[in-house]
């Protein structure tokens, strides 16, 4: 079971040229697919298209097919999409509803909207909080969280919908290194424990190096590179495509260029 994009193209409403496409992509359950690329290369558009929000919620025109577990994304209503495919954006503040008094109620917002019974709501909330690693924040005021905490709470809110796939658009871009680590760890945990398929847009390639199974690189809305994470991230064409290789790769290149021997132990130390 997977999210499958086949020859998908997308053009924003009022725009003359396609922002994305044609793209073929497959995100399978339990796998983490990383997406990198320069600014304006179509990464955010890919998120919206894969989640079915484009054209479903924001309009525009989509060609080709986007299927989530076999169902055409365009045929699903927003709340049905939400239960199949959770999406997380960069700005934590805009994803919290700001209408709840505690983190618990914030995470319960989704399940309550679905009309689930209270015992199930409570179970889902605790499970989501645990998966995101923020159980200790359950009683806190969502308006008074740090950036990293807020992003994790937003993640928990999405997880409470029990989606099979998670799409994340640069979730760590506004976070400091500590926050970034928290989120990356949470994602690894989610992939391992819930078996969700994850599509992760990141320009911090170190994060991709840590958690992605495969990586694709976009350029002007089309796939320029794709393959297993380690191979793609070590590809020399990465910089030309506007993507900075991970620190380990850059270090290795610098070391080799200085004619120093690069050993496996060094590679481990840098990881």
């Amino acid at each position, binding site marked *: 079971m997977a999210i499958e994009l086949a020859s998908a193209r997308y053009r924003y409403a009022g725009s003359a040229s396609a922002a994305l496409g044609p793209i073929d992509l497959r995100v399978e359950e339990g796998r983490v697919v990383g997406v990198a690329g320069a600014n304006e290369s179509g990464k955010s558009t890919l998120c919206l298209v894969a989640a079915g929000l484009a054209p479903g919620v924001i309009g525009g025109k989509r060609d080709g097919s986007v299927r989530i577990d076999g169902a055409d994304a365009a045929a699903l209503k927003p709340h049905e999409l939400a239960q199949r495919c959770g999406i997380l954006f960069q700005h934590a503040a805009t994803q919290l509803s700001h209408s709840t008094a505690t983190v618990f109620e914030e995470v319960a917002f989704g399940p309550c909207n679905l009309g689930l019974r209270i015992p199930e709501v409570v179970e889902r909330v605790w499970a989501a909080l645990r998966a995101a690693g923020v159980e200790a924040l359950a009683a806190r005021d969502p308006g008074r969280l740090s950036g990293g905490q807020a992003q994790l709470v937003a993640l928990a809110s999405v997880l409470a919908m029990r989606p099979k796939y998670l799409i994340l658009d640069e979730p760590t871009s506004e976070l400091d290194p500590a926050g970034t680590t928290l989120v990356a760890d949470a994602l690894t945990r989610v992939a391992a424990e819930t078996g969700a398929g994850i599509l992760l847009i990141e320009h911090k390639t170190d994060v991709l190096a840590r958690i992605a199974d495969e990586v694709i690189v976009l350029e*002007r809305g089309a796939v320029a590179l794709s393959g297993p994470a380690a191979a793609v991230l070590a590809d020399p064409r990465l910089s030309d495509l506007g993507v900075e290789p991970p620190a380990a790769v850059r270090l290795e290149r610098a070391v080799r260029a200085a004619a120093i021997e690069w050993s496996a132990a060094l590679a481990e130390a840098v990881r």
Partner: protein
Amino acid sequence: MGLLRRWVARQFTTRVIVLMPVAIAINIVLGYTVQSGLKLPIYVDSIGTILVGVLGGPLPGMFTGALSNLIWQYAPGIGSGSQIGPFAITAAVIGLLAGVWGQLGLFRPRRGHALNIVAAVVAVVLIGAMALYTYGRAFSSPDQFANATFKSASAFDQSRFFFLVVMAVFVVLVGWALVLRRDIGAVFAISAGLFTGIVAAVVSAPIYAFFYGGLSGSGTDAIVAAFRSGGDSLYQATLKQGLLSDPIDKMITTFVVFFLVGSLSRRFVARFPNGEKLVGPEAEPEAVPPADPPAEPEPKAASDAG
């Protein structure tokens, strides 16, 4: 009945629902800031209301206005719990009217075609006539507005004076808009603001008089006091004060909203319920950036949208 339901549902899209709380908060915060920080004799507590009305329609505008006042009264997160709850009625009317103006396309940018200019002149004449009539009545006839002595000659002079002040502001704002944007649409928008202001004053006067004895604890009380000392009744005095402050306030607010909406990208505005009516056919075709990132309204004014 089904038609009505659909008309209602069309106005409360998720985008509008999401905009409303922010608009309410802006109303409250700007209203308070302007009163205490900038110390201007205007209220500026309806920018959010008019914005939601223009973008979303009469019903969202109405609710935004009413809720702003009710929330400000009930759960004052700011400053003194203003005794502003009863003005929810006025605010609702303002929002309703803003929605109507939006649907009538009065906030659309318009080029200077002959037809548009004629329409603009007609609008100004109509508004001017209406204003003149209202001011004349308010300042001359007591039988509509409770009983008190009135001095006919000076009362009529008062009305002319006030009318001139308000129209002067009108002309200044329109002139400024035309210089800045060469957009005849500004004339329509500001005229709509004048109309809204007059209606707001007429609706507010009884509320003021009944609840507050016509006073508000702010600088405008001096004006009311002056009228009272001249022998006006409660209703009359508050109406006269209102007819000075409200139109000016609403014209300024509408002017600001007109410019802000005009600075948004077509694509962004088009997704709102009133969107079609706000993007005129005369607007230039959109420049197309290679890969549009979503969610930016791309204001043409170079202000940082954060």
